[in-house]
């Protein structure tokens, strides 16, 4: 029996166990069918291999060579992990998922904020199944890959956030995924956000684990933005140094809708983000900003796919990487402009800063343009700190290490400035000051 078959069989046994559980048996037929279909797709395609173009530059072995047992959803959060989370503030819903299961004790579901309903998948299925059926495991579908399929098949719970039409939320919604089961375990963590027509909301998703264990987080976030609505999302990934993190973000935008995403990849040994954005109405806009910071032998990989299926939409994408040691970065960005998607305006840029000569980046920005009246640009730069700028700073009396720190901070700060949430920005700044050489005390340096 080949290793691949053995793995599939292990997952199959896991899926069968799950499908027979009382939890799964209580689910509506449509969901059970979607789980079965997702698992069938996984069996069909299997885990990715180095031959898959989208995984060619990513060291896959830690994800595929072992078997990951589902983490115990009853287990309490790791000691101390909650203190790693940014201050959640006094207002707004807060949903805490421990190894993928929503913890009512740690969460703040009744935030008395009109226009938003926050709950576990269980509660949502019991009370508002009709709000879920059009979207759950539909937004992230067959196009999003094997890990998303596994999550759709196996995630027993989810954070569900439903925003009423026209609601304007001033406090952000927090979804905090904490875990870190023992090595060799996997947590399927999931979020569904449905933003009703004309609503405005912010969501902050944090992934945190503390201990240095080789556990896997397999996360899926589905975001639906109905006509005229706007969603500002921030993802902060600060998992432990040996953790594995594979996340899928799937977004569907209606007409005149807005989506802003800020992704901060600051942790895990191997971090992979797949982003899938589809414009399904005209006049919509999407901004994807991301920063990853890796050192040692860590790997950060972002693959994005923006599908301009409709005309008159614009997308802006800026991903920046800071790499030290023997770290590796991968950026694969694809912008598709469908036939008839005229007046598409797309801009895509990847910039990487190498702090050591052994760090490595694979960057492939890509445009696939099938309409003729469009404005599309893309680019990619990878380099070290500018020697002219370094000398300029030193010639004014600033020491070399401080000058390097200042320029590194300046490189990162372009993206930090776009973070609207004060406590998240403070948490990210603190984290970066711990992680990057020479940047301690530089918060006020940038402008």
């Amino acid at each position, binding site marked *: 029996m080949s290793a691949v078959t053995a793995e599939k069989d292990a997952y199959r046994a896991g899926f069968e166990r799950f499908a027979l559980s009382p939890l799964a048996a209580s689910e509506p037929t449509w969901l059970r069918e979607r789980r079965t279909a997702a698992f069938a797709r996984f069996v069909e395609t299997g885990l990715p291999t180095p031959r898959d173009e989208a995984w060619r530059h990513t060291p896959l072995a830690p994800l595929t060579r072992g078997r990951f047992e589902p983490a115990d959803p009853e287990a309490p959060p790791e000691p101390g992990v909650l203190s790693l989370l940014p201050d959640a503030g006094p207002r707004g819903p807060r949903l805490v998922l421990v190894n993928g299961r929503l913890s009512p004790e740690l969460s703040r579901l009744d935030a008395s904020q009109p226009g938003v309903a926050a709950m576990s998948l269980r509660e949502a299925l019991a009370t508002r199944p009709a709000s879920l059926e059009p979207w759950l495991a539909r937004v992230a579908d067959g196009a999003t890959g094997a890990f998303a399929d596994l999550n759709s098949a196996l995630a027993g719970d989810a954070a569900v956030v439903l925003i009423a039409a026209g609601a304007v939320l001033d406090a952000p919604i927090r979804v905090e995924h904490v875990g870190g089961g023992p090595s060799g375990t996997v947590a399927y963590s999931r979020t569904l956000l449905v933003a009703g027509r004309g609503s405005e909301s912010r969501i902050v998703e944090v992934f945190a684990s503390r201990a240095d264990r080789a556990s896997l987080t397999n996360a899926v976030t589905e975001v639906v933005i109905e006509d005229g609505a706007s969603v500002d999302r921030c993802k902060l990934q600060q998992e432990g140094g040996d953790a594995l993190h594979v996340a899928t973000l799937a977004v569907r935008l209606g007409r005149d809708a807005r989506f802003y995403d800020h992704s901060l990849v600051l942790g895990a040994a191997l971090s992979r983000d797949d982003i899938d954005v589809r414009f399904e109405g005209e006049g919509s806009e999407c901004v994807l900003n991301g920063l990853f910071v890796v050192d040692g032998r860590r790997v950060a990989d972002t693959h994005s796919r923006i599908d301009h299926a409709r005309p008159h939409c614009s997308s802006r994408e800026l991903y920046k990487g800071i790499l030290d040691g023997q770290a590796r970065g991968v950026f694969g960005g694809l912008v598709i402009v469908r036939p008839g998607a005229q007046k598409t305006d797309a801009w895509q840029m990847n910039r990487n800063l190498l702090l050591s000569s052994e760090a490595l980046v694979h960057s492939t920005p890509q445009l696939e343009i099938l309409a003729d009246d469009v404005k599309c640009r893309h680019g990619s730069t990878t380099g070290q700190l*500018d*020697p*002219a*700028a370094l*000398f*300029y*700073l*030193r*010639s*004014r*009396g*600033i*020491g*070399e290490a*401080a*000058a390097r720190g*200042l*320029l590194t*901070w*300046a*490189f990162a*700060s*372009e993206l930090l400035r776009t973070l609207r949430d004060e406590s998240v920005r403070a948490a990210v700044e603190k984290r970066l000051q711990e992680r990057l050489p020479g940047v301690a005390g530089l918060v*006020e*340096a*940038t*402008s």
Partner: protein
Amino acid sequence: MLEIRNLHARAGDSDVLRGLDLSVRKGEVHALMGPNGSGKSTLAHVLAGRPGYTVTAGEVRFEGRDLLALAPEERAREGVFLAFQYPVEIAGVSNIYFLKAATNAIRAHRGLPELDAVEFLSLVKEKAKIVEMDEELVKRPVNEGFSGGEKKRNEIFQMAVLEPRLAILDETDSGLDIDALRIVAHGVNRLRGPERAMLVVTHYQRLLNHIVPDFVHVLVDGRIVRSGGKEMALALEETGYAWLEKEPAAAGPTARP
């Protein structure tokens, strides 16, 4: 204050300075003129310690210390300042933070306490007036989006804040219209003083109408071939450099009028 003896230096792979001698005492303003490629800017960069330049022979003493043994930041802390011909744009770093970091690094070296935010701000306000520097520019990222004139003003503004002992002005007049030139020169003149020396590197005489030097030196092929008083610059403006190149080493390198 500054003693340069028999300085030979390479820029990249080519020999540029070939036995340069120069002596500058405190309070003096020296102009260094010469045709393109004669080594003026190379000298400025060698004195500031720019990587990519190699000294192959000779020595430079600054206040009695071996200047060439110091890192660029140590030279700055000792009081050497280079006003760049092409100031560098640094996106994302605010001018004011940059200057505060520099000021406090230099103050620490001199055994002075750090300036707090309030003290530093009042220092900046005072010094910005010297070059009529807009306070908005002070807050912006270093040189980013500045016009040519604003960049040069920013250099002199930095010089005013950092109060160097030796200021080297590398082609500070290049790219300036006459109004900007007047403002920059006025700022430089305000910073002249008995404890401060200046080395003004320029291709053209016109800057020296505004910053009147005590001494003028002409650099040809990496050596000083003529030294004289301020009137020599005027003579050069009329005749050009060609006649000098025909009679190298016509004057003693440290000749004083």
